[in-house]
């Protein structure tokens, strides 16, 4: 039986599709979003404005987009993969010339009705195009060097463009996401071993090049590495973020100081308290209980998504679900590791909770793709 045959026989149609959505994931996403709204209200001094109301509006738009994307059959999105990838590359190039600058980097593209961060989009479109590629590629070719070149190029292009902005954090996440896709597709272990040793060598070279004529990174990036390794070395300068963030987290204790009672955020000791560092406020006001709750919600999303991926017999769908899951995982894992002082400070938001349009919309659209793959999966035949 061909793919086409079961497609027509077993896929739900019309509004019936709503019943086939992966509802646990949707509910968990809403729960995370709700936590975000609560925290944004608290940070604004128990006020709906300026952040919570805007965020709620965006969440509804994103939610509607997610459902709409989920309703569209996955084979349509599959056929759009390459186009989407090329579009996002084009936007990344555009941002290079017309992007607006913020926080020392050109990341945003003003489309009039929305400011877009093409690097966020690129994460998803890269996953789509890699899923498409490995779905198309016959199994016996997967680990052959000539068939490795194409996916590497697909990963390198957005990586390079994002690095130009410069946004090291997102660029590394793109590489990680792409690498995980190649790993899932079944590329031989040896390649990853080689990449790992190459990466370690690269890091060593980067550190070694410091202060030499051929220094590879900007000074500010080296300083971030320094302060990551020892935040106390510069408590008022670059290490300020990490130190204050750890203080906020730690002072929360078991149950936290209560809604709106976090002194670290209320008195402005925390930087970026409504965006990248929002987790510190959550942990300060709701303590270990609050922090671990959010972590559990995230973990459940990942778990349900992996189950959905394993149960999906369609290779493109399965790869896409894994890819979206990994992207989501990398968001919150890197963000939390960062505020806990386990990773350097990179501009990665806490998914669904941090204030910010682009990442929220892109993420919900990605979960829409995941749902579409879930709704339109091959059922009962094979």
């Amino acid at each position, binding site marked *: 039986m061909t793919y086409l045959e079961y497609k027509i026989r077993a896929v739900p149609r019309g509004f019936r599709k709503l019943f086939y959505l992966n509802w646990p994931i949707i509910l968990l996403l809403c729960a995370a979003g709700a936590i975000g709204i609560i925290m944004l209200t608290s940070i604004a001094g128990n006020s709906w404005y300026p952040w919570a109301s805007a965020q709620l509006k965006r969440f509804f738009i994103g939610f509607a987009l997610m459902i709409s994307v989920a309703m569209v059959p996955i084979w349509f999105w599959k056929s759009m993969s390459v186009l989407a990838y090329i579009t996002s590359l084009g936007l990344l190039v555009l941002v290079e010339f017309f992007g607006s600058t913020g926080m020392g980097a050109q990341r945003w593209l003003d489309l009039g009705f929305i400011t877009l961060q093409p690097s966020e989009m690129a994460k998803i479109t890269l996953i789509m195009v890699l899923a498409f590629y490995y779905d198309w590629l016959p*199994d016996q070719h997967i680990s052959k060097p000539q068939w490795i070149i194409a996916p590497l190029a697909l990963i390198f292009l957005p990586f390079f463009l994002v690095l130009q902005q410069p946004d090291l954090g997102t660029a590394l996440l793109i590489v990680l996401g792409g690498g995980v896709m190649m790993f*899932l597709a079944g590329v031989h272990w040896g390649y990853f071993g080689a990449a790992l040793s190459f990466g370690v060598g690269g890091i060593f070279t980067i550190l070694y090049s410091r202060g030499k004529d051929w220094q590879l990174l900007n000074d500010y990036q080296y300083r971030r590495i320094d302060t990551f390794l020892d935040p106390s070395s510069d408590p008022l300068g670059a290490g300020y973020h990490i130190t204050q963030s750890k*203080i906020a987290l*730690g002072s929360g*204790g078991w149950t936290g100081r209560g809604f709106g009672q976090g002194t670290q955020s209320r008195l402005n000791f925390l930087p970026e308290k409504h965006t990248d560092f929002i987790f510190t406020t959550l942990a300060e006001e709701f303590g*270990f209980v609050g922090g671990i709750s959010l972590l559990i919600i995230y973990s459940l999303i*990942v*778990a349900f998504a992996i189950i959905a*991926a394993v149960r999906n017999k369609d290779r493109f769908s399965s790869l896409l679900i894994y890819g979206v899951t990994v992207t989501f995982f990398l968001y919150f894992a890197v963000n939390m590791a960062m505020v806990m002082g386990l990773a350097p400070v990179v501009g990665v938001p806490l998914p669904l909770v941090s204030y910010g349009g682009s990442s929220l919309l892109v993420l919900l659209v990605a979960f829409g793709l995941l749902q579409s793959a879930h709704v339109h999966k091959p059922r009962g035949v094979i």
Partner: protein
Amino acid sequence: MADRIQLNQKSYAKLSRRGLILGGLQTAFIAGLAFRMRKLQVEEASEYRLLADENRINIRLIAPARGEVYDRNGKIIARNEQSFRITVVKEDAGNIEQTLYSLSNLIKISQRDATRVIKETKRSAPFLPVTIRDQLSFEEIARIAANTPNLPGVSVEQGLSRVYPSFESYAHVVGYVGPVSDNDLKRGNKNNPLLKIPRFQVGKVGVEKHFEDTLRGSAGVMKVEVNALGRVMRNLDRTEGKPGNNIQLTVDTELQSYIQARLGSESASAVVMNCKNGEILGIASSPSYDPNKFVRGISYSDFNELRDNEFRPLASKTVQDAYPPGSTFKIVTALAALEAKIIGPKDSFSCNGKMEVSNRFFHCWKKGGHGEMDLAKSLSESCDVYFYELALKVGIDRINEMATKLGLGIKHDIPMSAITKGLVPSREWKLSNRNQEWLVGDTVNAAIGQGYVLSSPLQLAVMAARLASGRNVKPILTKSINGKNFYNSKSIENLDIEKSYLKIIRKALFEASNDRRGTAYGSRVIDDAYRMAGKTGTSQVRNITDAERENGVTKNEDLPWKRRDHGLFINFAPYNKPKIAVAVVVEHGGAGSKSAAPIARDITLQALFKGKPPLEVYPAKDRMAVLEQQNKLGKVLKELEMFRKNKV
């Protein structure tokens, strides 16, 4: 077709396997995050809670009220006054220049203040108040209060500032306070956080400096919650500090003011002591200055004027300056000779005006000499040659010993600044300081209080007091601290000098003041109950050459001020029942009998009568002049008292 499905099955299995490996890695990472969260939030929570509180809680010190200083009768000498200052907050004011301009229409704002304010507001956070002017009067405050709507961001703050209501009278005794300098910080108490309070003031000289720790008190603490920029969000807690201790001095303000006025514009100083217990009743140096000017921050021109004045108003001449004691030192020589039993009171020498000692002539101040002299006469008429003779027999060692017994050459411990030790020379001193052997001529010079001998007015007063009471009195300036007595008058022992010898000297001094031929006869008191016993001194600050002696010694009045003799006088009174001892030094005032003795008499009588003495105690021929002077000083003192009352 089946082939394709087969392959799909195989790749599906591989994908699932890899997917589960990935899931495992993710689970491990999430577990790591959870453990980290537990470590920060549960295990190290209290530590981070503390750090968070350190972040948000700012401890501000509240300056304690400085202790006050009183005189022996409880009259205030140094106190704290509610002072007003105006500050401006930039973020409320908006345009600082505009605000300053509107303000300058209401009160005086100097160009210096204006530029300082503009500079400070640019530098500090916009919500921090910057002081525009300090020490505003009530009237100025009222004017500002009436115009508050036009002065956004301007507010009036209250504080305490030091006030010295007696103005110049106590400048050298109590001194003044001023802002903390680097020097103050260096002096050991660097760690006292109080010193870092902006506008905190510490004692700079005199009692204020000596008793700094006693007067200062301890700081109160105010806990405030601040945000990351340092802006105060709310007050959390406030503990008041402990005010400083009050100090009562032994001085009598009325007498002190009188002495200050009596010394007038002369470069002079006077000390009045209770001769039984050593309490200093008055200790003044003139000219003086207004310590209040220093509290406010004295202007450069005012300070330069004080510094460059030939009469040195900033110097506290009573304790800080040492003069050759001149003939007043003859008391020491005489007592040393008596103690050594070298002479009896009846032994006499003949004075013919000069004496040759190792090929050098030593002259008597009286050309032609005094004729036959015994000890009493030589003291009362102040014959030099008699003491030259004595010196040769007594020797410097005994003179030195006696001087120390009488309180010369000792650094007396009273809470004033820069107290001098003076100098009572000895063989060892000359050898180690001048690298020369002691010569007989040095002894001869020392015997009449010239040469190396140097004494401060305070030391001379102590000598007079010891002579009068026969007790080993030490000068006392601090009566009590916070009502607790600071010294014990019962612990004063008798002087280690034969009483009968002291009596001889006292009698000789009585004659100096009351015998027609005595050097201080001109400044006698005619009421028996108040008669003084004193000794004049005239100490040279120049050498008189032989040629000058031939042509007649130049009169003091014809010399430039700086080269005139110092006039000294020490006395105690009443002679029958000594109560007080007085020392007066008039710098370059000429003969002690003419310059210092009249002042000493007025001061002595003022102290004995505790106010204006009746004219009847003065000899008839002096009464007109005394009356005139009493009226003049009365006016000055009345005016001063009025100012005082205004300030209190």
